[in-house]
């Protein structure tokens, strides 16, 4: 009872990876266990200092360093909140709640990880955790790649770009087909059209797909019902066809949800 709390993390380092995309390592007080509890696919709620911005910003966990009690997040400047984060420097503090949500279920067999745009970061923690038989398909808009090299020690890396400047010209599914990748399980995070493509591909191939969803959140912990997605079955919590992205997700078995 009452074992979770808002934690004050210290920015250990922050760098810009690409235009408007930042990577930040957060260090937590040892006793708070934030990093040691985290699993790939979970997220943290990051809070702004500016008092006119009250709601949490959900950001996926990109890397987990349990020994050092650190978490890494990689985010894109999307508005004022992420802009505020981007001005932070080593030594600054930030309030967070987390880790939140359920994370990916790690499967045996051939794992194909699919990240589109700012959906790429959580795939890094996942690639590291899955360890073997990992292929990662990364979809970018253009040749402004980020994180790509960091995947290389852990996975075979396949690239798709919208403009064809690197890898397959087209989307991640185009790349999977082009490379004739075989998969037992797909793990995906990215924009909705991509997730729809992944779900359809998994159905076509009759394989498991775990997809990580995004929705606007208020509480981030399952209490407000702000962040629901439509589920196929009546959900055991809500007893209607709704699941909470923050609490029941953000990772769902693609068969269970309507995209």
């Amino acid at each position, binding site marked *: 009872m009452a074992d979770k709390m808002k934690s004050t993390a210290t920015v250990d380092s922050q760098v810009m990876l690409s235009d408007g995309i930042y990577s930040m390592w957060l260090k937590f007080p040892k006793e708070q266990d934030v990093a040691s509890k985290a699993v790939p696919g979970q997220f943290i709620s990051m809070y702004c200092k500016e008092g*006119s911005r009250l*709601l949490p910003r959900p950001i996926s966990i990109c890397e987990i360093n349990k020994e050092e009690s650190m978490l890494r997040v990689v985010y894109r400047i999307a508005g004022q909140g992420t802009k505020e984060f981007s001005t932070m420097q080593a030594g600054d503090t930030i309030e967070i709640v987390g880790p939140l949500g359920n994370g990916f279920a790690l499967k045996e067999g051939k794992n194909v990880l699919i990240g589109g745009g700012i959906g790429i970061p959580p795939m890094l923690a996942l690639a590291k955790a899955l360890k073997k038989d990992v292929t990662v398909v990364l979809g970018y808009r253009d040749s402004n790649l980020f994180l790509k090299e960091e995947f290389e020690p852990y996975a075979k890396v396949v690239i798709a770009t919208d403009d064809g400047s690197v890898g397959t010209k087209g989307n991640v599914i185009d790349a999977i087909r082009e490379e004739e990748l075989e998969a037992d399980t797909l793990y995906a995070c990215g924009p909705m059209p991509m997730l729809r493509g992944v779900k359809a591909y998994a159905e076509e191939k009759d394989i498991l797909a775990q997809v990580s969803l995004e929705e606007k959140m208020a509480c981030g912990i399952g209490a*407000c019902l*702000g962040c629901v997605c439509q589920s196929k079955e009546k959900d055991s919590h809500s*007893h209607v066809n*709704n699941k909470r992205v923050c609490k029941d997700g953000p990772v769902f078995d693609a068969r269970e949800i309507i995209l």
Partner: protein
Amino acid sequence: MNLSVDFAGVEMKNPVTTASGTFGSGAEFAEFVDLNELGAVTTKGVANVPWEGNPTPRVCETYGGMLNAIGLQNPGIDVFAKRDIPFLKQYDTKIIVNVCGRTTKDYVEVVERLSQEDVDLLEINISCPNVKAGGIAFGQDPKQVEKITSEIKAKAKQPVIMKLSPNVTDITVMAKAAQEGGADAISLINTLTGMKIDINRRAFALANKTGGMSGPAVKPVAVRMVYQAAHAVTIPVLGMGGIATAEDALEFIMAGATMVSIGTANFHNPTATVDVIRGMEAFMQKNGVKDIKELIGCVE
């Protein structure tokens, strides 16, 4: 130092509860705060049958506040009675069940069903701006307020709090109508109807177009209405709207509220409820206030 209050005949260990819809039925927040510390837990609105709620996006941020258009998604009274009441009964805190409906019949059905349950108070939401039928429609017409109040009172076994809408010309008229109808207490404010447009997408920020505004931004409107309502009726007032700190809570109490609810603040500070209680204690200590009741309505 005494923080306890009598609210509509129910003894509360302190005057702090949660604002309906921001705290679920307490299960999620129980991981952050000890529910035993709260005067009461007020649950998310529950109807006679499950409600799907509105499409997403259901929430968005505004300057110093937020909009929501959840649309009263709820699992219905049966699941609630089976799952949420037993959960809350584990704790030493009072239970205020918030009730919603589309028709008077819906409300009465839930209230009758709850008369068999061991809960302490009923809060009747006649002020939700996010559902098409029912909700706010009742809360903006004094005749309807009085009528639905008396119909509910006829069946209710627990004291009834009528939750009023701030989207009215004169809150005192609505407060008096609730009292006339036999309400044991009133609570206010529910959310102010608002809208946000995303100029880059040229679209509404919420799927429902409008939503209910809450959070610190609305506090001055809420304090004003609590003050006006508390001076218009003799039944006790449960005040809310933008309370984030003990200072905020005390403002409502000095304006005339006997109890206060913490809502949106839970989203930016999951321990807001207990932080407010501790802060009230600290204020009383510092200012030599022996009993919180000395402060209720002390600013005239």
